[in-house]
């Protein structure tokens, strides 16, 4: 347990001190400021613009860095060979891999807290008061999405080099964002096989499950547990699947 904790702490510190961390926080703040300015331009859709730009900006920024860090959690130690110094020890490969993931998750959660703080500031600035429960959940789900993307990056990082892994992670994320939208546009006149295929992908691989912005925009403040539960279940399944696969692959990988 001692080793796990120390390896996790090490991974967290590496990311916390990474050259990307502070610029990402800065970008988050810039996005919030821009959302505020843009919403003041709009006359009617003031709240929609604020939520659209603000939360979507946070989502995009966090997702990008989560994918980058996820892949780099494996690619960097392989490149600088620091992996040799940690794996050539009594610590199990599984422990090392999970510690990398947990360290990454801690860092993404920290980023989520900072963004939530910025969002709270934005709400106060616009006289919306304290963040509602649904807003808390919206940011919570965004952080969960980042963690899943981090795990996906980690999995692909164990399979391929940095460039291939980052490209594949981004492609899979975009597929998960677009598939449900494409499925919604297909009408009854579409080819049944095609429709079935797109619906299948949209059901199995749907990253829009982490998007509560639409609900926030219509002014809803109520958290409906039966609505959130399937999202959390899906997230749990994807996370478990990614980490199990990553652990199995990494266990047998030659670290050349």
């Amino acid at each position, binding site marked *: 347990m001692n*080793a796990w904790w120390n390896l996790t702490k090490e991974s967290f510190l590496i990311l916390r001190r990474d050259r990307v961390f502070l610029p990402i926080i800065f970008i988050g703040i810039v996005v919030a400021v821009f959302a505020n300015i843009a919403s003041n331009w709009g006359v009617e859709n003031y709240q929609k613009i604020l939520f659209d730009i603000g939360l979507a900006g946070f989502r995009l920024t966090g997702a990008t860095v989560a994918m980058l860090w996820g892949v780099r959690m494996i690619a960097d130690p392989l490149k600088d*060979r*620091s992996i040799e*110094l940690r794996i050539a*020890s*009594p610590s199990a490969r599984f422990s090392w891999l999970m510690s990398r993931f947990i360290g990454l998750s801690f860092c993404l959660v920290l980023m989520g807290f900072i963004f939530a703080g910025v969002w709270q500031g934005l709400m106060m600035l616009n006289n919306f008061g304290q963040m509602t429960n649904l807003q808390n959940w919206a940011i919570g789900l965004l952080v969960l999405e980042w963690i899943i993307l981090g795990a996906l990056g980690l999995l692909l990082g164990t399979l391929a080099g940095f460039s291939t892994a980052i490209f594949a992670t981004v492609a899979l994320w975009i597929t998960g964002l677009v598939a449900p939208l494409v499925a919604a546009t297909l009408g009854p006149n579409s080819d049944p096989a095609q429709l079935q295929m797109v619906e299948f992908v949209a059901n199995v691989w749907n990253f829009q499950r982490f998007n509560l912005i639409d609900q926030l925009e219509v002014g809803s403040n109520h958290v409906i547990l039966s609505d959130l539960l399937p999202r959390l279940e899906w997230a749990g399944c994807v996370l478990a699947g990614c980490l199990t696969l990553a652990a199995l692959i990494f266990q047998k990988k030659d670290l050349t």
Partner: protein
Amino acid sequence: MTMNSGGPMEASFLSLRGLEKTFRPDALKPPIQLLKGLDLEFFEGSCTGLVGHNGAGKTTTIRMILGLIFPDRGQILFRGQPMTREHRATIGYMAETARFPATLTPTEILSTQLAIYDVKSASSRAKLIESKLESVGLFKDRHRQLKNFSKGMQQRLAWAHATIHEPDLLILDEPFSGLDPVGRITMKNWILAEKKRGITILLCTHELPQIMSLCDHIQILRNGKLVYSSLDKNLKGAKLYESLPRYFIDVSGATVAELDAMKVAHKLEPWQTLHQNGFLVQLGFKDYPSATMWLQPCLAKGFVVVRFGDDNSATEEQLLVHFREEFTQ
């Protein structure tokens, strides 16, 4: 160099039996066989030098011992038992190419290392780290991030990292790489100190003089095979390195016959090696006085002394010649 026959007095600490490994770097490229049934023995309390050209299989062998690469065939025995992850708790490893994450500090790196090696109490960990960093001269830099460290400082930290848990087996991959002369002497002294502690050392380096002065045994790899082992065949003479020429005089304008005549006339010490390259004749001597007594007669005779002094690379050259002769016997 102290030779040891590896006889019944020594217990085998680590045995590598019939290791084979084939890599396919690319799906379109043919596979490369890196190790071809490699057998190696490392004895308890001995220092063994692993030598070989680039691509001979040294690093692959080390990585297999450390569990970073899995063999296709063969096995690794640790004190007679198949090696497991738990056995690696007794190993210290200093890698040539590995770099620590640049944003961490020496204290953080060593703290994680001790936690992995199950040094439980935080206070004992802190004390160990402080004394280790003190001993390698990094105490005042203990809270500085490594991105500001020089290559020499990184090597000193790598040494601290490899030895802080007092391993029974120390694997050193090119420990002298990138060090200045002072750093090399310091590193050599550290290795000697660990050797005195009675631990088993596996030293992998291209620097033959270091191997010859530190190691009890030598094993030479070539193309994934063991081609020479001082355990199987004692080198001629127990102090091979000491017997090799270290001081050289490069003389221009002299023939071998003239030098021979001069040797007899002035009762000079005979040279150990002689190489002729065009007008240049290089004479090799094992000690300084033997070499210096040739200077005055050479100058008096009007020969031009192009160079005089010790030359490690020339000594290594002689050593390689010796090894080549051994292989072909």
